[in-house]
Each structure stands twice: as structure tokens, then as C-alpha cells.
């Protein structure tokens, strides 16, 4: 790293951390709220909040540059959203703004980064901390203190701020994120959303010029997500300068400007209306385009819809439909229920977008399709259950009840999504099915036999479990050895193991990676490897705990394409997830849990009609579902919506 050598003129701007605290001292006379609303009143005319000029960065040991000539200006009070696939350079860009790159992450850096006109060249990360507040995805790793007040005080203490000053800033910061009254709570006792809001409060207390949020909601449940995005919207209204990095485009529609990164370069930027309509570009960049825009595009409307209302107006205008729907009510026209059988077509279309998964499906597809179609007639399964929980109760010693009178069964070939807030008991229930937890009362049957009477080898063949974090099980030095680990524990012959390894490598499309080191694979590949290593035991029921968390859209599609193709071969699937679109597009049956109880268990389309139940769990139906209702239709995906609305337009005309 030789930034100063390359830009000798920058050396004159020597950075003094005390300057920063002195600058904030100047603002101290004003109260905190004023600062939030007009943080940069004087600098508004003067300088951009943040600026990057031709920034190029290559991590040590990497062959390709992570950032290749980034030019970016963040104006005071502006909110910029950054999207892109994993590895596109989003986090690297964010880290440049607070000197984590290149001061913490070593590498070859060139270019200029300025915060409020001050060049960061040569500064340490901690020097920049009062100027740029950063909120990370990993909320566990960014909280260090034993109570909320101390957490907020942390950075201010490090900066050597006077005690009275620190005290005076804690309450307003807590109030700004809606955590008033939490000052004495232990941060570890907070929910994910509260922890992330606390991290934001700690940053707000410093009154930084820029706040950077690097995928702040990736690890949160729907409720936490909603909380954090509501807060971000509020901060934006108060005029703070924000940079938000996100996988899902939906949440970034409120930004002033969007940036799409690919391979370290900005490939598109502009207001949401211009970026969100470039669907092909977004998809090739690993971004999940908003479903409303996808639905419009299928109908041939090249326009941006920021809300369901906008989309409705656009469609009514273009297709001149007069039929009124029921925007809020849950009245569904039974005539359109059959539309769900179009699912196979839509799923095929998606599989084609994602060619690899289409190939892995193709082998068994011919034999499995007939069966899958029969099963689609009913959401459940007529066969005898693979796994069954009867009057299941569970609580940890001295702890509250986690499962409360659970009755659940899953039959061959089913595809079930279990949803609910964190702490609702989803994972606990799943762990009971594979015998990782022992029920406090009640029992679990696997293929009709009490699970406690089964040997581990028998359990493994009946039910497999893929943990949320693939890194919790990967340890071998090659992909092949990782997959062979399970079968070899059961004493299978060498030929048999070899055969299974080849089979599952093909199924998860990792044939090319056979000899590679698992730790060098991408997160998506590691996730598929974890699935492969469980598949090698040939379970008839596969449970996946949040299989798409932390993956970008392309990886998510590939992962779910794999899961769907496995389901078509007859393997029953249970996914635990927080993503409504995933439930809508892939599952056939949904189970909603809350406080250890099952509140809903039924077909997916019925599930999305349970307005009250969904609202209680902060689980929003997909926007196309809400849009369809406005026309009195039922749809779970943009494709379904498009075909339904076309049919409606036809009948409306005739």
C-alpha cells in the first residue's frame, strides 16, 4: 500500500483525530435533535458528505482488483443504495469510507477518499470513527459492553470525550432509535433488530457526517428487518447522509440514488426509477429485482412502480381494466385458485434462467414429474408420514417453554416452509425431528417408529439436517473428502462411497470443485457443499435451516433450484425461512409458528390470506400477491400475476 507515494500532494492534509472532536465540540451548543435534522447545514453549500475519486483496491494475495476505479459523491442529506452480487465489491467500497480499507485490510490502494472535504490518506481507522459511522451485518461482533448505555458510550470514551458530554448524548441517541428505557439492559438480551438499532444509536451519538450500513438486515427476522428499515427511513427524513448496502432491491426504493456494482465497477447508477427498470442488468448483477417491476415488465410495461398502488394504476391504465378488487380484505375468487397449478410452468421458467439447476433436475425429472404433479393436487401428502411430532413440549432446564403442544407431520414428497419470528420455536421443532433435542413431553416418530428407539445410522437415512451456517460442519481439506465423511462414518464400502460422492457432486453441481479446498469456495458453494454432505447419507426428509441467508440473488436461485429438484426426486423438504418470496415460489405448504405454537398449517395460497396472523409475525405477503388482490385475483409470483391479469383483461374486454 503506497497511497502517499502515488499521491504526494495529499500528504499536506495531515489528519488529526483531535480536529474531529474539536469540530464536534463546535456543534455542541446546539441540541442533539437539531444536529440530526441539520447535520451539515454549513457544509451543505460547501462540500459533499463523502467523496471517492478513482479508487482502486486489490486485496493482498488476490489476483483481481476488488474495486476498479470507483467514483462516488455522496451529497449532504442524500441516501445512496448500493447493490450487487457477493464479491462485487460492495463491502470493500464501504470499508474505504472509514479506512478499514486499506488500514485494516492490507492491499494495494490508490485513489482519494474525502469525508466532508477532509482527505483520509494516512489516517488510522480509529481516527475516522467520529466522522463516519459504520454498522455491520454481524451484529454480535460489534457489541462489546454489558449494558446498552455503556455500548453507546464506547466510542465516545475511546475518543476521550468529557464524561458529562457522553452522558448528555446517550438518551437522545436511544430516543432516536426507539430504545428509550433500555439503558440498563444487557445487549445480549436484545432481539436482533434491537441489537442492530443499538449499533445505529452508538453511531448516531457521535453525530458523524456519514453513516454507512453494510447489509444491516441480512441476519434479521422480518420483524427486525421492518424495525431497522423504518429507522433508516426516519434517519433519511432527518437529513442524515446515508449509504446503505443491500441484497434486496425492494428496500432500497426509497433511496435518492442507486448504484449497481459488478466486479468492482459501477455498472449503473441513477434514481430508483431508472435503475429498477433495468431488470436484466439487475439479475445478471445478482440483485433480486422488485417483483412489482418484474410483473410490469412481463406485461410489457417499462415503468417503475415504487408501491403496490403505483403498479395498480399503471396496469389499469395500460390494460384498461375496470374490475375492482379487494385491496385489504382476504376475499379470494375460488375460480383463480387453479392458477396455482401454473406453478410448474413458472418454476420451469426459473429453472431455465438458472441452467445448472435445470440440468441437475433433468435426470430424475422424467420419473419424478408424474408424482410431483399428483401431489400438487393436494398440499399435504397422502402417504404415511415420514416424520411426526405428537403433543410435543420442550423447555430448557430452568428456561421458559420453547415448544407448546406441537402436532406436526410431514409425508413423502412434501415441500414445507416453516416461518415465524426468531425465538418462535422453528429450529427447536426441526432439531427434534432429527433427534438433536429430547422432548420434555410428547414424542417424535420417524416413519412410524419412536425416534428414541432408532440408531444414529437409521436416523441419518430417514432425516437429514443442513445447518444455517455451512461453516459449522465443513472441516475437510477437499470437497470430495467433506462429502465422503458422512458415508464413511457408517462403514460403507469404498466403491459405495465413491458412487455417492459422484452422485451428490452432480446433484449440487460442484463436479468441477471435487479437489478444491472447501474454505476457498464462495458462501453459496459452501452452502451447496453442506447440502451435498448431508445428501450423501440419502435421507428421505431434508431439513434446511435458512438455506438462503447471506446469499445473493443468483446464489439463492441456484440453491432453491437445487432444493426443488431434490424435492422432485421424491425427497420431502422442510425449509426454515424468513423470505416471503421463497415461501410463495417454492413451498406448497406453510407452517407459521409463534411463541412455541403452530398458528397456521396449510397450503401456501391460504397462508398468504391470513392477514391478521401474518401481521402479528411481521410477515408480509409478496407484493404481487397484494397487487393481485386489488384486481380480485390470486397470485404468488410475478409470472402467475401476469397470466392471471391477462386472462382478466380478456374477459373484461369481452
Amino acid at each position, binding site marked *: 500500500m503506497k497511497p502517499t507515494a502515488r499521491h504526494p500532494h495529499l500528504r499536506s492534509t495531515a489528519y488529526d*483525530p483531535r480536529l474531529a472532536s474539536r469540530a464536534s465540540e463546535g456543534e455542541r451548543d446546539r441540541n442533539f435533535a437539531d444536529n440530526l435534522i441539520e447535520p451539515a447545514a454549513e457544509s451543505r453549500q460547501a462540500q459533499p458528505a463523502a467523496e471517492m475519486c478513482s479508487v482502486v483496491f486489490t486485496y493482498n494475495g488476490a489476483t483481481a482488483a476488488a474495486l476498479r476505479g470507483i467514483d462516488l459523491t455522496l451529497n449532504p442529506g442524500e441516501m445512496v443504495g448500493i447493490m450487487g452480487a457477493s464479491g462485487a465489491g460492495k463491502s470493500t467500497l464501504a*470499508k474505504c469510507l*472509514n479506512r*478499514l480499507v486499506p488500514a*485494516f485490510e492490507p492491499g494495494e490502494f490508490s485513489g482519494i477518499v474525502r469525508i466532508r472535504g477532509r482527505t483520509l490518506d494516512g489516517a*488510522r*481507522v*480509529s*481516527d475516522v*470513527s*467520529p466522522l463516519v459511522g459504520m454498522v*455491520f451485518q*454481524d451484529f*454480535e*461482533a*460489534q457489541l*462489546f*459492553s*454489558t*449494558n446498552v448505555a*455503556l455500548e453507546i*458510550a*464506547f*466510542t*465516545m*470514551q*475511546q*475518543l*476521550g*470525550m*468529557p*464524561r458529562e458530554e*457522553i452522558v448528555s448524548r446517550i438518551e437522545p441517541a436511544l430516543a432516536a432509535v426507539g430504545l428509550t428505557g433500555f439503558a440498563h439492559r*444487557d445487549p*445480549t*438480551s436484545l432481539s436482533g433488530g434491537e441489537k442492530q438499532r443499538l449499533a445505529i444509536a*452508538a453511531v448516531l451519538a457521535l453525530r458523524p457526517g456519514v453513516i454507512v450500513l453494510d447489509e444491516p438486515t441480512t441476519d434479521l427476522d422480518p420483524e427486525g428487518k421492518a424495525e431497522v428499515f423504518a429507522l433508516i427511513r426516519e434517519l433519511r427524513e432527518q437529513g442524515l447522509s446515508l449509504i446503505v448496502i443491500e441484497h434486496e432491491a425492494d428496500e432500497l426504493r426509497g433511496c435518492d440514488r442507486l448504484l449497481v456494482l459488478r466486479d468492482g465497477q459501477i455498472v449503473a447508477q441513477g434514481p430508483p426509477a431508472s435503475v429498477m427498470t433495468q431488470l436484466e442488468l439487475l439479475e445478471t448483477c445478482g440483485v433480486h429485482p422488485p417483483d412489482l417491476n418484474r410483473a410490469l415488465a412481463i406485461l410489457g410495461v417499462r415503468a417503475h412502480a415504487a408501491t403496490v398502488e403505483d403498479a395498480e394504476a399503471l396496469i389499469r391504465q395500460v390494460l384498461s381494466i375496470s374490475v375492482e378488487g379487494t385491496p385489504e380484505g382476504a376475499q379470494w375468487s375460488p375460480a383463480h385458485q387453479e392458477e396455482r397449478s401454473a406453478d410448474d410452468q413458472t418454476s420451469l421458467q426459473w429453472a431455465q434462467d438458472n441452467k445448472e439447476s435445470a440440468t441437475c433436475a433433468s435426470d430424475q425429472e422424467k420419473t419424478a414429474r408424474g408424482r410431483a404433479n399428483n401431489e400438487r393436487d393436494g398440499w399435504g401428502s397422502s402417504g404415511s408420514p415420514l416424520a411426526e411430532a405428537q403433543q410435543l413440549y420442550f423447555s430448557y432446564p*430452568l428456561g421458559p417453554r420453547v415448544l407448546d403442544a406441537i402436532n406436526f407431520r410431514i409425508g413423502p414428497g412434501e415441500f414445507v416452509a416453516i416461518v415465524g419470528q426468531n425465538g418462535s420455536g422453528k429450529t427447536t421443532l426441526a*432439531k427434534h425431528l*432429527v433427534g*438433536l433435542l429430547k422432548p420434555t413431553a410428547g414424542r417424535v416418530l420417524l416413519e412410524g417408529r419412536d425416534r428414541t428407539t432408532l440408531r*444414529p*445410522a437409521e*436416523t*441419518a437415512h430417514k432425516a*437429514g*439436517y443442513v*445447518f444455517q*451456517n455451512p*461453516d*459449522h*460442519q465443513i*472441516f475437510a481439506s477437499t470437497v470430495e473428502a467433506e462429502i465422503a*465423511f*458422512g458415508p464413511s*462414518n457408517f462403514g460403507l464400502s469404498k466403491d459405495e462411497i465413491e458412487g455417492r460422492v459422484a452422485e451428490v457432486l452432480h446433484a449440487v453441481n460442484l463436479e468441477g470443485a471435487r479437489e478444491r479446498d472447501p*474454505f476457498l469456495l464462495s458462501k453459496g458453494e459452501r452452502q451447496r457443499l453442506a447440502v451435498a*454432505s*448431508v445428501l450423501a*447419507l440419502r435421507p428421505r426428509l431434508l431439513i434446511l435451516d435458512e438455506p438462503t441467508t447471506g446469499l445473493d440473488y443468483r446464489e439463492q436461485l441456484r440453491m432453491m433450484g437445487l432444493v426443488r429438484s431434490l424435492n422432485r426426486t421424491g425427497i420431502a423438504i422442510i425449509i426454515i425461512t424468513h423470505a416471503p418470496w421463497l415461501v410463495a415460489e417454492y413451498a406448497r405448504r406453510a407452517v407459521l409458528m409463534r411463541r412455541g405454537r403452530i398458528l397456521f398449517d396449510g397450503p401456501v395460497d391460504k397462508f398468504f390470506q391470513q392477514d391478521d396472523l401474518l401481521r402479528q409475525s411481521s410477515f408480509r405477503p409478496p407484493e404481487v400477491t397484494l397487487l393481485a388482490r386489488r384486481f380480485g385475483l390470486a397470485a404468488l409470483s410475478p409470472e402467475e400475476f401476469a397470466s392471471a391479469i391477462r386472462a382478466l383483461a380478456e374477459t373484461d374486454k369481452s
Partner: protein
Amino acid sequence: MQTSLYLDRGTWIHRLHPAVKLFALFIMFWSVFWVDHPLALLPVAIVMVLLAQASRSWPNFYTFRWFLILMIPPTMLEWMAVYRAGAPIVNLWAIHLSRQALLFGFGRGLKLALLLSSSILFLSTTTIEEFTTSLVTFRMPHRVAFAMSLAFRLVPLFMDSALTVVQAQSLRGYDFNRGNLVERMKRYVPAVIPVFMGALRRANNMAMALEARGFGLGITPTSFIEYRIERRDIVALLALIVMGTVYFIVYFKGYAAIAAG
């Protein structure tokens, strides 16, 4: 999950100056160190019970109950095998069982249990910030003190991830408990690697977050909580000094030696 043993009870023990608490921990270790006879250890045990009651730390003792109980018998057995002094009550091949060996073994077990108890008591009544402050009071550099106290916070997180890893591997049919001791140790490789890699990743994330939040600026951090020396601190300090001195005298005069016979 809970990541520290601290119980926010606000008793007078909790309110002691952090340095006094650390000194108390030291005196407990010191006192236990000098004597072998179980009877001489009894006063420490009584102090411990009174302090646990006063600070309402029993839930943590309950969590560690099996460790505390199981520390004594194996230690006794071990010392029966190696302690050779005294007239034997039983003398069978390698086992040379005398009254002294029994007393000595029991004393050693009790010592370990008391060391663990005093640590539980310390962690139940001291926050991570107080721990840092106490180390800084004894002239440890702030950075080092902070890093040490942070380690306490990380241990439960690693335990949690280790549990998940063990679950994941056992579902793949792996049996961790097969073979003799050495083989068993080797068999933990499929668990150790993921935990270790996870720890590295987490440590990296944490270091990044720390720097981003101004750690390591080189400025003496403001101490947000002000710890004043109160009268109870002086009283506690004197009591601890007396206790430490008495135990040293007991050792020096040989009062607590285990008599032959």
C-alpha cells in the same frame, strides 16, 4: 444466549470497587494456596457461602454444581494412588490408603472447588467493564486489560458454536467418543477445525468493529462509570488483608499441617 455470568443484582458486593473485587479474588486464591487441611479450608468455604448468599449468585453455582461436586472424588482417588505417607488403613498393590492420604486428597479436591467457586463469585458480581477497570487500576495497559476482559465475553460464544458443530457432525454419523484417550482427542478434529475457523472469522469481524468504533486511538479513554472508594471498600480491603495474613501465619506456624498417625 447469555454470554456472561454477570448477575445484575446491585448488592453491596456488586457495588464494591472493581479493584477490591479483584483483590478479593486474589486473597481467596492466596488463602487456599497456603493450607492443605480440610478443616483449615473450612473458613474459606464458609466465607464463600456467605458471599454467595449476600450477592445472590446461587443460580451460577447451580449451573456449575456438577463441576463443583465432581471435583472432589477424582482428586481424592488420584491422591490415594500417589500419597505414600502415614500408616496405611488399606494396603492393596498400588493403593496405599492412609488417613493422611484421605485428608490430603479431600483437601486438594476442596481447594479446586473453592478456586472455582471464587471465580464464579467474581464473574457473577463483576461486569466486563469493571474487570477492565480493575486490571487498569493495577497498572495493566488499557489495551491489554480490554483484550483480556473481551476474551471472557468470547468464551460462551465459542462454546455455543462448538455445541452446534458437534451436533452437525454427529448427525453425519460421527461418534466423538470412540477409542482410548488419545484416539478420542484425535477424533475431535472435525469439531475443532470449524470452531477454530469460526473463531478466526469472528475475531476478525470484532477487530474491525472495534477499530471502526475508535478503539486504539491512543487517547486515554474517558472512564464513563466513576468508581469512588467508599467506606465499604476500606472495610472489605482490611478484612481481606487480615484474612490473607492469618492464612499465611497458619501456614508459617504449621498449624494446618496434616499430622501423621
